[in-house]
């Protein structure tokens, strides 16, 4: 049952670092995060790692496992051979703070720059009325746990620091789509999506969708429909003229 796994963990900080080898005990049913915790408790007490829920719900424990962006708490040790060396490195698209912890400020900055939700007035009785079918599209995107694995994997920014200022990344392009499809929101977000947040730079490779631990169809359900709406706006002059803040969108 229990065995010793070979782990290679990246250790270091913003000035540099490298992979270190460890042998750590593994028991039945454990996930990579358990092994990292055991490593902390027994061999490397100052090993830096982020986590909160240990149940795939908070999106804190993102890292790259054998080069693939994953949540450590949802990666079962049983998916590896007992002899396999498991390599754990910090998210590559973000600057390292220490060990497995990266500086994800880029994401918070992007979130902040998106024009906030701007609802229509409530009905006279003080309620908002929406149909279930109409809320479901945006609800899918609100399942996002902000693990930023999609941000890490998207080739537009993964090895292209220079694209970061003009590209919000799949998570935040999806946020714009979410607001655009929100039954109560009154802003037209199409121009901003294209010009300020770099929707045009996405070439729908779907790598983001593949790594999303929530199984959100980022590309098919958010990015492609948003691209289609942007095209509509560009080529249909009527819509273009009708774009005013505060107006119900089509």
């Amino acid at each position, binding site marked *: 049952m229990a065995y010793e796994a070979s782990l290679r963990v990246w250790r270091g*900080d913003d000035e540099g670092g490298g992979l270190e080898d460890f042998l750590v005990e593994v*028991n*039945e*049913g*454990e*996930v990579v995060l*358990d092994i990292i915790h055991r490593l*902390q*408790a*027994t061999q490397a*007490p*100052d*090993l*830096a*790692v*982020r*986590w*909160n*829920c*240990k*149940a*795939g*719900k*908070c*999106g*804190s424990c993102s890292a790259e496992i054998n080069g693939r962006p994953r949540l450590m708490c*949802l990666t*079962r040790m049983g998916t590896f051979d007992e002899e396999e060396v498991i390599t754990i490195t910090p998210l590559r698209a973000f600057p390292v*703070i*220490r*060990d497995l*912890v990266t500086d*994800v400020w880029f994401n*918070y900055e992007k*979130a*902040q720059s998106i024009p*906030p*939700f701007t*609802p229509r007035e*409530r009905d006279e009785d*003080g*309620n*908002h*009325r*929406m*149909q*279930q079918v109409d*809320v479901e599209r*945006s*609800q899918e995107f*609100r*399942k*996002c*746990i*902000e693990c930023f694995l999609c941000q890490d994997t998207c080739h537009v920014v993964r090895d292209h620091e220079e694209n970061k200022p003009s590209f919000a990344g799949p998570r935040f392009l999806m946020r714009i789509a979410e*607001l655009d499809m*929100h039954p*109560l*929101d009154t802003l037209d977000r199409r121009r901003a999506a294209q010009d300020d947040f770099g929707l045009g730079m996405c070439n729908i490779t779907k790598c983001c969708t593949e790594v999303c631990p929530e*199984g959100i169809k980022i590309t098919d359900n958010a990015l492609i429909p948003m691209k289609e709406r942007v095209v509509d706006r560009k080529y249909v002059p009527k819509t273009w003229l009708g774009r005013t803040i505060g107006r119900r969108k089509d």
Partner: protein
Amino acid sequence: MTDLERHAYDVVVIGAGGAGLRAAIEAHEQGARTAVVCKSLLGKAHTVMAEGGIAAAMGNVYPEDGWKVHFRDTMRGGKMLNHWRMAQLHAQEAPDRVRELEDWGALFDRTPAGLISQRDFGGHRYARLAHVGDRTGLELIRTLQQRTVALGIDVYMECTVTKVIKQQDGSIQGAFGYRRENGRFVLWQAPSVVLATGGIGKSYKVTSNSWEYTGDGHSLALQAGATLVNMEFVQFHPTGMVWPPSVRGILVTESVRGDGGILKNSNGSRFMFDYIPDYFRKETAETEEEADRWYTDKKNNRRPPELLPRDEVARAINSEVKAGRGSPHGGVFLDIASRHDADYIRKRLPSMYHQFKELAEVDITKEPMEVGPTCHYVMGGVEVDPETAAAKVPGLFAAGEVAGGMHGSNRLGGNSLSDLLVFGRRAGLAAAERARATTVPNVADAVLKEAAGEALAPFERDGGENPYTLHAELQTAMNDLVGIIRVAGEMTEALERIEALKVRAKALTVEGQRPYNPGWHLALDLPHMLRVSECIAKAALEREESRGGHTRDDFPGPREEWGALNVICSADGEDVALTRQPLPVMPPDLAEIFEES
């Protein structure tokens, strides 16, 4: 002091869960310069784990629902030990707090008429929980997070407060802490500090709580001179995962039962029918047939016993396992597979489906889940004024799980998210009001040096123990000796172990440097965990009766004299002192509500 970042605000909120963010939003809207200080990244707080929903008597599904019914359910669920005024304000204000979330972008599930849908939950007479599938907590956090960002409120992410600073006259002067990223110290000077730090679960081995739940807010309040009320009441959620061992304790939402899931023992029997207490007999189904009819016809049938308040269900599961009728891994079976088709289950309980699939390799649409009790929530907390959430120290406020009184001896599911919103807002309002009328002088260097010295002490020592070892020992002691069923002898032993751990914690050492060093962080969290554990064990030993989340093997059943008493903890040097205090008396017009039923 060099090596120190100084900030001045009107209101500093510690914690960025539902209560903290709601408090910050309110304080900001009142015109206060407001900061939020949180240990994790924004949006990661434990509130995301709340699955079921937000209890609010909006009457969207059952027009006969109203605040009085919600108030009654809450008080009865808490076995009448709740602060009546908190329960009243909570029931009255929750609907407005839910509605405003929609103005900030929340997308709840809808009724056919397009209103916010409401679901059934244990202990609530009517379907009352506003929800989004089974990820309501995430929706709440994201909504408040996005609102906080839209308002431009300053958020200090990954910062831990180690000390609440007071002036000579005993009133609040600010909060002191460090940045996790680089270990540097920060002072947030402010006349109002709102504690919104959540709970204490990390003192227990089997818990649904994240690492942040160290009881630091409870402990900071005690050290600042505030009091804690009824710390003996700890809620063990009846359904946590039991297998595999590494996920033991992770929550399985009550919605599984609200949506038809039933509990069975190893004989296949629906054992909850054997555990219906007299107190709830009138409103609980007697036969499986009646219970099953309830899901479709709630007017003419009584509720299934699986939906009794959490304390009742947790004790029943505990007894079944002890009697040898448990599941292979020491829990009982929670079965929804045989009750609904796979599509329905995946639609109604997507996170649960996902969680069992990923973590336990169990397909809940085909097999039953194995579940057992897990330490989930502390009803006890900082003693506050119901109207303002003010603690006994001028300038200190507390809201959410860290505050006590609202839930009495047992909290109903769904009442936590609503509590966060109602009292988070009240705390923010009162904190801003106080700040308007108060200025604080600069914190003296000597005070800061002392606070910094205390935080760095574990680095100065050599050859002591590792904090992880001590933490594991504390968790075992609390789990085994002050758990779901308690007796005097075991609790006395727990207190002896805590005393010994207090001594050892003073000598522990940490390796490495200050930047992002989890060993150091744990070393600073440990004294908090030890202090709240001492409160829980002492208060539990004091209360010689069984009520709600506190079950004494040596004192079974509630006792009348204890029904009118709160147990209050205060700091006595390094120890915890107890006093008994009469429960606030409910005015006659509210007391009538209970005579009618």
